[in-house]
């Protein structure tokens, strides 16, 4: 009888990386469905192209680096899907391919792969696409059937939509970000399965609403328009690029909300959620340094 001698612990939580990524994909499903319902087959095409190219680039990169192929962990698929959901519905297919390549190879791969990037790949890719090909990234279409009618997003003309329309998402915008109902369903799934904790989404939305109100805007409309809720639920909560400790997470998320509100109110871009999250990603290592749990037996209470 050959007895295995690997050391304790002898049981492990079933929630491995693949399980977590799978949960994120499940949580994104309502947004995908809403996107396809509102924006039709081209949206579905974009999602497929984006996911496929992200996984492909990940595999190629891992091969090039001579590493073990780890695409089965699902992280590249999540990146690709989140990127697609951040694209306008009628974006050309090559935009998704370029974005995936940038996200997977430059933002993640050059830094060492999963877990080593300091900035959210999908967010950075969106910022790259917006900076490089603005005319494709701001060509909004109203979800009115198959014909692409160019229109303004609610962030540019806030009064044109009622809160209910904003909530249900029959409005122009990126594929995944318009239907708040679907996002909330996904967020609920993530919270119920304890894939993420509540701190980041709550702090980010609270901060965005508060500062939007201070800057003289309608906080409800601010929360319901643009990519705020999608960003707070799915992108700010990216494990790899957010701080680890709850207190640091709250500050990180509040900072992202503040930057988003500032950019929406005063800067040149209509939407600031992307930049808010990216900037706070960059600050996350510092926040992690500043906030630590007190180690048992050290510090003030120890000598009691």
């Amino acid at each position: 009888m050959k007895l295995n001698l690997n050391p304790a612990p002898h049981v492990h939580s079933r929630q491995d990386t693949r399980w977590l990524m799978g949960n994120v994909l499940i949580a994104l499903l309502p947004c995908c469905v809403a996107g396809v319902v509102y924006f039709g087959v081209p949206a579905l095409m974009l999602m497929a192209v984006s996911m496929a190219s992200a996984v492909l680039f990940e595999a190629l990169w891992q091969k090039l680096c001579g590493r073990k192929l780890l695409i089965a962990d699902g992280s590249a698929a999540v990146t690709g899907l989140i990127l697609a959901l951040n694209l306008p519905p009628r974006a050309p297919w090559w935009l998704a391919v370029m974005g995936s390549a940038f996200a997977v190879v430059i933002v993640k791969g050059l830094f060492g792969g999963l877990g080593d990037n300091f900035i959210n790949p999908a967010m950075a890719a969106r910022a790259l696409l917006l900076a490089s090909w603005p005319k494709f990234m701001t060509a909004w279409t109203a979800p009115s059937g198959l014909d692409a009618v160019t229109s303004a997003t609610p962030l540019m003309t806030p009064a044109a939509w009622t809160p209910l329309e904003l909530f249900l998402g029959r409005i122009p915008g990126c594929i995944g970000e318009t239907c708040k109902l679907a996002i909330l369903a996904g967020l609920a799934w993530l919270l119920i399965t304890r894939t993420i904790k509540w701190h980041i989404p709550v702090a980010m939305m609270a901060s965005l609403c508060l500062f939007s109100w201070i800057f003289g805007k309608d906080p409800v409309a601010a929360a319901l328009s643009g990519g705020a809720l999608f960003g707070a639920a799915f992108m700010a909560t990216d494990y790899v690029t957010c701080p680890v400790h709850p207190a640091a997470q709250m500050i990180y998320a509040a900072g992202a909300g503040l930057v988003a509100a500032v950019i929406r109110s005063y800067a040149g871009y209509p939407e600031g959620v992307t930049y808010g999250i990216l900037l706070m990603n960059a600050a996350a290592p510092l926040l992690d340094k500043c906030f630590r749990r007190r180690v048992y037996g050290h510090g003030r209470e120890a000598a009691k």
Partner: protein
Amino acid sequence: MDGKHGILGNNPLLRLGLGICPAVAVTTTALNGLGMGVATAGALLLTSFVMGLIGGALNEKARFAVTLILSAAFASVAQMVLRGWFPALNDSLGVFVPLIAVSSLILCGGSEAAGRGFGAAIADGLVMGIGYAVAMTLLGAVRELLGRGTAFGAAVLPAAYEPLLLAALPAGGLMLLGIAMGLYNAVFGRGRNGKEGA
């Protein structure tokens, strides 16, 4: 010449990271890269020349100060030359022409030239300068091609090409220089005597 620096083998920009401020800031086109590279190389050569002559007589601290003053003087000369003969280039390089004065390429190269003998100082300055100018031109060419679809101002990519505007922006410049350095290291290996961040 002892081969300490080279055009390919130990490129001052791609291996040592000398003079990276202008390398990112002005290399939006190949011509800008070439102009900046040559201007910096010229100032470096003159500084090395003088330091090669007098550097041996100076101690470490004084060397740095003298190099800085010399470099500022030759940067002024470069600015006058550019302003007089290449006004368009001068305008597009803008504030980075006077900033040649504090280019780490010259400050490092000049300080090193001191006390190495006149001939070695000139040869080193020349090789470093050419290496820098070549790297600057190449970086400018890549950024111009990606960002505008042109090479030295002439359209080379088909009209259907949608330019990657980011390549011409600061963020793209930083990333492309970083990737270029990585590629350079991958191709030429990491030099034994090439300590980065000098």
